């Protein structure tokens, strides 16, 4: 789960990480009031979850409260990277001497967390890692030792700092690590982490992405995710029901069990010339009820012209899925053509249930993908 910049900054501040003084404004008038409170030039930053907002004009600067009001008005009327801006963060503009990067993230190949730093922050760190890997400092974090003071000092030194600045910077790194561990972050970063004109360190921009699988121990985030995240009605319903759903731009609705199989189903539909409208994984051991919910979500997407259900049962039982399809039929009616492929655990029972209800079942995934694309080609009949 991605947090907004302002949410991340509020958490960082709780841990004693230096952040610029700032306020969340939902109207231009509020922004003007906050700018006069700050009583100095401000940055007006649109609060959206997609990265790369600066490049897309999502951050404006203002010398006066009136300018801040105007900038906010502009941002609130716009879409940045396809997302409507709902609020802005008005914060004191800082005098930058140097921009650094520091982040804690997951190193999958080494199966641990890793601290990543660079003396050249404020840029896309991945791009930098590819074009100039020598400018990146990495410390792999041993899960038993953890990230300790000496690691933090090592990194500060490698970034070129000595004396008090080295220890100051090290303490910023340590606090950031504490935030990452306490919040179960899969990414906690300061980019840029600014060295100010007077030699202090301030987290000018922050990102915090929480491990979705750890939300059960973070009730504080769970309640928030429903209300504020930038979700479509289908995404929201999927999230509420714990289903993995991703909206895509085609017209073939796809439901399957198992992420790999659903991805391969999307790929197969595309290979046969179709365009997937979504990814929906009902997951392992899907019940009849969950199948009905999944079908309901896909059918409610106006872009979907045909639905392809691809089930290969392992932990999922075909009879449960079949009952779910019938349940959905009762609940919402099957308004769109459907292609069903059903094999695996309890498949005889599943096929019998659907066949008895007059629903035809296929047993080859590729044949079914092809059939789905043919239905689209014939105008959905």
């Amino acid at each position, binding site marked *: 789960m991605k947090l907004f910049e302002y949410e991340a900054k509020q958490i960082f501040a709780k841990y004693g990480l230096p952040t610029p003084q700032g306020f969340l404004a939902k109207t231009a008038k509020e922004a003007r009031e906050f700018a006069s409170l700050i009583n100095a030039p401000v940055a007006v930053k649109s609060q959206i979850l997609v990265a790369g907002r600066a490049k897309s004009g999502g951050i404006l600067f203002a010398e006066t409260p009136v300018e801040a009001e105007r900038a906010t008005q502009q941002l609130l009327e716009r879409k940045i990277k396809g997302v409507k801006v709902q609020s802005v963060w008005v914060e004191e503009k800082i005098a930058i001497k140097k921009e650094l990067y520091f982040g804690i993230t997951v190193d999958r190949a080494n199966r641990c967390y890793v601290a990543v730093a660079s003396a050249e922050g404020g840029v896309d760190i991945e791009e930098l890692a590819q074009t100039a890997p020598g400018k990146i400092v990495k410390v792999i974090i041993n899960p038993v030792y953890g990230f300790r003071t000496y690691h933090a000092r090592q990194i500060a030194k490698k970034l070129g700092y000595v004396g008090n600045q080295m220890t100051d910077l090290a303490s910023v790194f340590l606090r950031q690590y504490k935030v990452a561990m306490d919040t179960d972050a899969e990414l906690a970063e300061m980019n840029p982490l600014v060295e100010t004109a007077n030699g202090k360190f301030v987290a000018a921009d922050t990102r915090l992405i929480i491990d979705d699988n750890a939300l059960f121990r973070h009730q504080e985030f769970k309640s928030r995710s429903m209300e504020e995240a930038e979700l479509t009605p289908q995404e929201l319903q999927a999230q509420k029901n714990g289903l993995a759903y991703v909206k895509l731009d085609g017209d073939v609705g796809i439901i399957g069990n198992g992420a790999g199989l659903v991805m391969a189903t999307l790929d197969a539909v595309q290979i046969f010339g179709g365009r997937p409208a979504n990814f929906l994984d009902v997951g392992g*051991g899907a019940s009849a009820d969950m199948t009905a919910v999944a079908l309901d979500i896909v059918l409610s997407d106006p872009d979907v012209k045909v639905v392809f259900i691809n089930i290969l049962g392992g932990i999922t039982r075909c009879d449960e899925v079949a009952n779910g399809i019938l349940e959905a039929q009762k609940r919402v009616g099957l308004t769109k053509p459907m292609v069903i492929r059903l094999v695996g655990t309890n498949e005889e029972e599943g096929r019998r249930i659907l066949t008895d209800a007059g629903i035809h079942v296929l047993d080859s995934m590729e044949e079914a993908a092809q059939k789905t694309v043919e239905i689209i080609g014939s105008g959905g009949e």
Partner: protein
Amino acid sequence: MGVLVDKSAKAIVQGITGTQGSFHTRLMIEYGTQIVAGMTPGKGGTSVHGVRVYDTVQEAKDASNADASIIFVPAPFAGDAAFEALDAGLKTIVIITEHIPVRDAVQVMYMARKEDAVIIGPNTPGILTVGECKLGIMPAHVFRKGVVGLASRSGTLTYEIAAGLSVRGLGQSTCIGLGGDPIVGLSFIDVLKEFERDEQTKAVALIGEIGGNFEELAAEFIATEGYSKPVVAFVAGRTAPPGKRMGHAGAIIMGSTGTAASKIEAFREAGVLVAEKPSDVAKLLARKLDKKA
């Protein structure tokens, strides 16, 4: 024969009294797997499908001489369950559970390395050595005994491809689900090494997906180590957009890292044949094995 588990494996089931634990215990026993004990805290003294249940892993191990465990415990407690298995000295641990936090998985993997134990998963369908042992939830009927070693990051896609192989008369030695999470116990390189040593295995199929760089690392390993057995790969997620988690916690393109295109290119450069559709895996393997014969 086969790798990591064979008919001598003696396993306990952690979470045996739950719906999934109990259902799959029956299927594993039917397959011929030696399920020697079960474990659910508070249910000690009961039994499930004739398997005696204990309150702790240590008790279960002491009573049964088990060397492996399969875990069906809900995610918030699964990390703890794995630690308990490691601490009791079990050396092969299959974690079926999905949605385990990364922070817990990182700790488990570190301790497993220290204990010289193998973790399969989390978020895996398990492991199956055909005709000998199934520690997992795969539908057994799709597999046939043979010479193809299969390793995959996905569950159902593995069954899809294994069924395709079986239909074409290409049986399997061992099928391993690495798991769909960002942090898993085995990499493609680990299993390639296992299959290299196994006499039954004559060719390897790797089923990858977007996210991480296990496929790229495997390709590099195959190219630089001069891998002796033919390898065919399939990579799911060509149509996946960046920044979106495609079902598995580990299936996500971060920036430009982890795309299907990058993995496919790495495999091709290493001389690995890449299947376009799941059914092509069998065709390509048949061609490779014919040529070799």
